[in-house]
């Protein structure tokens, strides 16, 4: 097994067991929406553990439950922005590692091209970044790009407007490993290009998670993301 596949399966396990924070789960769902093989794995694991839920003693619904729900549904539009799904592979087993890698990085590469096209005039500094992550909002639109050079050096630039309410800050995060958890890359003055300086982290890896959240002014008080996610994405390794 490659480390890459191990990580993904590990994330999937945590997700299915409800062990991710809300922010991590959202990040993972974005990945699942773009990777049918991963989605199939999650669905399988869920179905296998389902007997644990079916063992709970049933509780009768109150008489007006369905009516109250219907009244709420009348106010709620259904989401229409369904991410384009690649047909899921027919194989019942896990696809071989190259397929995982291909699926995840193809999707990343597709949005990457789009985001870089919107990105504009910033000249690319030397040396090349080790990974590039395009951060998408919940509509799947690119908002920012993070280039991570390793050695605690990264930079972020914004490719679409990000509204920051007064008294709030944008904070950038990455998830180097499940062990380390979400780690701050820095608090930003506003949606402007900035250099990020994280703590001493392992070299950034392919498919590593990056995200930006809205936090109280000056950054998260807990050292973990607490606010709403503005955008998130997975890194794509650059070069060879």
């Amino acid at each position: 097994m490659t480390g890459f596949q191990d990580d993904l399966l590990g994330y999937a396990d945590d997700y299915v067991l409800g062990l991710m924070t809300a922010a991590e789960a959202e990040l993972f769902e974005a990945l699942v929406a773009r990777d049918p093989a991963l989605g199939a794995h999650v669905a399988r694991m869920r179905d296998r553990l389902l007997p644990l839920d079916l063992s709970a003693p049933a509780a009768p619904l109150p008489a007006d439950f369905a009516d109250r729900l219907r009244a709420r549904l009348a106010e709620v539009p259904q989401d229409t922005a369904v991410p384009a799904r690649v047909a899921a592979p027919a194989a019942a087993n896990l696809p071989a590692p190259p397929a995982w890698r291909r699926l995840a990085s193809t999707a990343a590469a597709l949005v990457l091209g789009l985001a870089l096209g919107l990105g504009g005039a910033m000249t690319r500094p030397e040396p090349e970044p080790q990974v590039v992550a395009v951060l998408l909002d919940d509509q799947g639109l690119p908002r920012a790009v993070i280039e991570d050079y390793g050695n605690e050096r990264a930079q972020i630039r914004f490719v679409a407007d990000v509204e920051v309410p007064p008294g709030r800050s944008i904070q950038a995060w990455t998830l180097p490993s499940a062990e380390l958890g979400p780690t701050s890359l820095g608090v930003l003055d506003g949606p402007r290009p900035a250099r990020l300086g994280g703590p001493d982290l392992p070299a950034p890896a392919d498919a590593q998670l990056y995200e930006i959240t809205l936090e109280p002014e000056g950054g998260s008080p807990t050292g973990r993301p607490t606010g709403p996610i503005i955008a998130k994405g997975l890194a794509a390794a650059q070069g060879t």
Partner: protein
Amino acid sequence: MNEQPEQRSRRLEQALQACIQGRAEGIDAILEIEGPQLLGVARRILGRHDLAEEALQDAMVQVWRKCGQQHGAEGSARGWIYAVLKNRCLTILRDGRRLASLSPEELTRMQDARQDLVPDEGWQLLAGRGRLGECLDALDDPSRRAILLAHVAGYSHGEISARQGVPLGTAKSWIRRGLAALRECLS
């Protein structure tokens, strides 16, 4: 009442299809087929009937909103619907502000009840009869307990490590190891 499980699953798939087509009767049908069981799961995790009802209402709104994503997706309708509900329960459980309205006694009672959801003896009742129970039985005790605490009682990594009296990393590796073995056993 004594409907075959396969028949019930099929009706649930049809109900979800109706939702995907924008027909709200699908939601009524889901409640009719699966509502009491769903409420039971929420009740077990949250320990309180009012919170359980709130979780199920919110979850069904999510099902209505997001069912389009399930179009052509793998896995059962039931598995997805329960996952949406469980997520909603966990959000309530981990939302300090949401629980701030409860008195300290109520909170304590809620946490105590969760403690007792996963007994050392008799945990087999949780898995029912079938392959899952056999595979859980084959795991080492700490891994099995950690997995059950997470899935059945909604424990976080931190809560599992506190309950079991081990460092966070140890709790995480129990779960990782246990789930890898479980996957192998079930496939």
